[in-house]
């Protein structure tokens, strides 16, 4: 219950009130500990609790007494006995389940999921990891990276954990050797390169002796990276949340009287605001948020993980399992999806067997229609398999009997996860993470399918939110379209300068530049123009994924091509800007002398002369450059971005 040892205890009533309020206002980090048998997990947790004064005196007395019977150490007490809960486990000398521990320091409150190292308990590790932001991986300095270490790191990454604290433990048994530490770090990094991109932090410790656990170790002056506790207190995790894609799974309907019908739920991701236009899925009905009710009163907006009750403008038939979303940002609504599944039951997976799947607030009958492969947990190779046994992990196709709303787990941890329940025994037999197949589900056109069926999308380890937080912007593509000479490139350059000067990361994709390299094989006939725009759109989409604001400067004369660009880049990110300059003005400007050449017949298929320009019907912005200065055009675009919340003002 106590704060870290340095904090003096509050004495006056006012101090206690302040102390309590500070305690409640701190943020929370949930982390798990994983390691092989005898790597010293329980000892580490006992040490964290003991050194941060979290142990009650009567508990400590009981442990001292127990140390004589069960203890495995010759020191004064065995910290592991503080955390090994169940009697049977204690007698076997191993932990066999997930145990949750609580402690706090001045900086943060912590929940530890203590997960087991024994080979047969992969499922418990997955269970612990599912609610955690960070994993502490323990490696015995005497043994280095073992199969278990690989397995634990892999599971943590599969379950969406983005931060690993790799503790090389028992440094006291290798004479606190820097060389041993560095060798193991290299070994670990060599293996972890195969995992999805994860933030990794290495610390040499001795949990038993307390080196680098709470305080920096005097025995390892060569290590300047701070103690484990320091890392746990300072690693940023709040940016891991998805605040973009609003998802509100309806959990419960309240109807206290005829005039009030409220939909209770917890915001899974994104931000829900009073007055928002919303779509209710799967029905697709549109309506508007009238109020967001809480016990304390109405609120203007709700964000994850707030629990609120929503009332809507129209009497729509909504029940538990439906999802309220923004009309322009929808999850998948489908009956089929692919997923990575961790099998948790002694009865193996039955392909085509009948199960129940629970996803958000939905429980639906479902079938696992195929098992594509299983992971060899040690090599991480994909191997053919007929089934999954307990503690095995594989990729499956799932078919639900009703449509459900979901996102890819890599994008949304709350709406991308599910459990599999056995219909006969009611046991929870599997846990799944839905894979991203956005592009295969909505092909851009027939030529957009990858030529090879072996190509699979790999999710990044860095989330969209993290990138947005780093760059302090939301990515978007400003698609400048207009005649040659309309001023696209000039505006693009001015806009880029202006955005860059205010600290935004942005980049121009210019027609001429792209045609010098990536698109040098393309000409100006209709099909080459279409391909030109497709490639540019894909590049813009990639740069947006990387977090950049992209400015494109292409004539892009065909409506259909721009519609495809919008599709590829995404409706939320595509901003169509019509640089609307009359042909006469462009022809007078003629900066590259192209109109002259076209009129002279030296250039064929020149837009505006002998090729059509299809003006946008509903562009996000129109710039009448004939009557405007360049700076005004730029200002208009910037104002639009601020208005849409893509840039902070």
């Amino acid at each position, binding site marked *: *219950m*106590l704060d870290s040892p340095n904090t003096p205890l509050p004495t006056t009533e006012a101090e*206690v*009130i302040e102390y*309590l*309020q500070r*305690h*409640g*206002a701190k*943020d*929370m980090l949930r982390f798990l500990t994983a390691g092989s048998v005898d790597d010293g997990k329980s000892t580490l947790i006992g040490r964290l609790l003991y050194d941060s004064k979290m142990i*009650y005196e*009567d508990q400590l007395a*009981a442990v001292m007494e*127990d140390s004589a019977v069960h203890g495995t150490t010759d020191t004064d007490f065995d910290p592991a006995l503080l*955390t090994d*809960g*169940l*009697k049977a486990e204690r007698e076997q000398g191993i932990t066999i*389940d997930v145990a*949750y521990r*609580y402690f*706090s320091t001045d900086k943060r*409150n912590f*929940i530890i999921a*203590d997960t087991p190292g024994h080979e047969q308990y992969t*499922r*418990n590790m997955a*269970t612990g990891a599912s*609610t955690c932001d960070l994993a502490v991986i323990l490696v015995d300095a005497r043994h280095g990276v073992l199969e278990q270490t690989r397995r634990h790191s892999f599971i943590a990454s599969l379950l969406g954990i983005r931060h690993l604290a790799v503790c090389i433990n028992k440094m006291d048994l290798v004479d606190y050797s820097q060389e041993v530490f560095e060798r193991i770090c290299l070994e670990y990094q060599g293996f972890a390169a195969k995992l999805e991109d994860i933030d990794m932090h290495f610390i040499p410790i001795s949990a038993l002796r307390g080196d680098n656990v709470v305080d920096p170790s005097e025995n390892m002056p060569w290590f300047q990276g701070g103690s484990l506790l320091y890392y746990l207190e300072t690693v940023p995790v709040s*940016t891991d949340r998805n605040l973009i894609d609003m998802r509100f799974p309806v*959990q*419960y309907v*309240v109807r206290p009287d005829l005039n009030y019908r*409220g939909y*209770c739920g*917890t915001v899974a991701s994104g*931000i829900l605001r009073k007055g928002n236009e919303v779509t209710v899925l799967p029905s697709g009905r549109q309506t508007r948020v009238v109020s967001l*009710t*809480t*016990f304390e009163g109405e609120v203007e907006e709700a964000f994850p993980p*707030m*629990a609120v*009750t929503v009332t809507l403008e129209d009497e729509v038939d909504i029940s*538990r399992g439906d999802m309220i979303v923004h009309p322009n940002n929808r999850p998948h609504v489908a009956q089929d999806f692919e997923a990575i599944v961790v099998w948790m039951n002694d009865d193996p997976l039955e392909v085509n067997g009948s199960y*129940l799947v*629970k*996803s958000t607030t939905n*429980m639906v009958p479902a079938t696992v229609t195929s098992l594509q492969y299983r992971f060899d947990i040690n090599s991480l190779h994909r191997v053919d398999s007929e089934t999954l046994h307990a503690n095995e992990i594989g990729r499956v196709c799932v078919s639900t009997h009703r449509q459900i709303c979901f996102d890819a787990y890599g994008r949304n941890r709350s709406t991308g*996860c*599910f*459990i599999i*329940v056995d219909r006969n025994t*009611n046991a*929870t037999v599997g*846990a799944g993470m839905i894979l991203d197949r956005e592009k295969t589900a909505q092909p851009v056109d027939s030529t957009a399918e990858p030529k090879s069926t072996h190509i699979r999308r790999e999710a990044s380890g860095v989330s969209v939110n993290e990138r*947005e*937080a780093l760059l302090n912007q*939301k990515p978007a593509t400003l698609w400048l379209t207009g005649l040659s000479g309309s001023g696209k490139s000039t505006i693009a350059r001015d806009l880029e300068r202006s955005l860059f000067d205010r600290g935004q990361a942005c980049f121009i994709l210019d027609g001429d530049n792209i045609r010098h390299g990536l698109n040098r094989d393309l000409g100006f006939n209709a099909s080459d123009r279409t391909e030109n725009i497709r490639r540019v759109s894909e590049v813009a989409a990639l740069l947006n994924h990387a977090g950049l604001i992209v400015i494109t400067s292409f004539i892009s004369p065909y409506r259909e091509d721009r519609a495809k660009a919008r599709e590829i880049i995404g409706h939320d990110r595509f901003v169509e800007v019509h640089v609307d300059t009359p042909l006469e003005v462009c022809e007078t400007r003629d900066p590259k002398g192209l109109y002259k050449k076209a009129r002279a017949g030296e250039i064929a298929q020149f837009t505006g002369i002998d090729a059509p320009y299809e003006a946008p019907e509903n562009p996000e912005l129109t710039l009448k450059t004939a009557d405007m200065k360049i700076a005004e055009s730029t200002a208009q675009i910037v104002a639009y971005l601020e208005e849409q*919340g893509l840039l902070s003002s």
Partner: protein
Amino acid sequence: MCNMITYNFSHLQQLEAESIFIIREVAASFDKPVMLYSIGKDSSVMLRLAQKAFHPAPIPFPLMHVDTTFKFKEMIAFRERMAKEVGFELLVWINQDGVTRGMNPFDFGSEEHTRVMKTDGLKQALDHYGFDAAYGGARRDEEKSRAKERIYSFRDRFHQWDPKNQRPELWNLYNNRVHKGESIRVFPLSNWTELDIWLYIMQEEIPIVPLYYAAEREVVERDGNLIMVDDDRLPLEPGETPQRKRVRFRTLGCYPLTGAIESDADTVPKIVQEMLLTKTSERQGRVIDADKSASMEEKKREGYF
């Protein structure tokens, strides 16, 4: 975006939101849930969370108190007051077999009394009403074996808990499926610590039984515990004379089995300050746990809450 950084939720707000989610989830997916109301401070917090979960609608399930007939008088008075003020449906269950047998902790011993009046009483009540889910206010930080308890804890037809046969619990996807006769015990406060509970009581101004606050009370000293003379059923042993002391209780149960501590703490901040100083863990005041360190685990296997 700059303003994203402001969408932060404190530790206590997160705990509250998580508990409300769990309470709603159970109400939505079980046929007949009940909230076990022990009248203690954790129950008081759980009650407030249930009010919040369904506001502006009333709590859609009953609260049930398993009365061992040896609860403090002030607890019973508080129970009746809360039922009236909050307006929930209150069920009170007393094991009539135990009453017929004249069950009391003095002649039968604390273990036997607790088993019959509390553990068996609870099982009878659950069977009688056919509840398929029962909310309890237990927290994982209370005791070592509770650290491994699930939020949804599966119980077989005999209300037994098997530590080796619990369902894996991932994300917030709780498995509500049970066969007839089986049930789930649900612990919405699993992730709260004692400090969180007190902070919440203070912030939310949640009423609690006055016994938590220090006052002059008549007690006798017995086996190192201060036992309150709550009524004339407490047999005094030779040499025992009730004396008035300024005491309070850290936990509440049957009065002959619950030790008081000498204290001047008569407000929540004073209680917290005392707690921070003493570092004596919560259940120590309960006579029943003092036998051996794994005793709670054995009671849980039998169906003790």
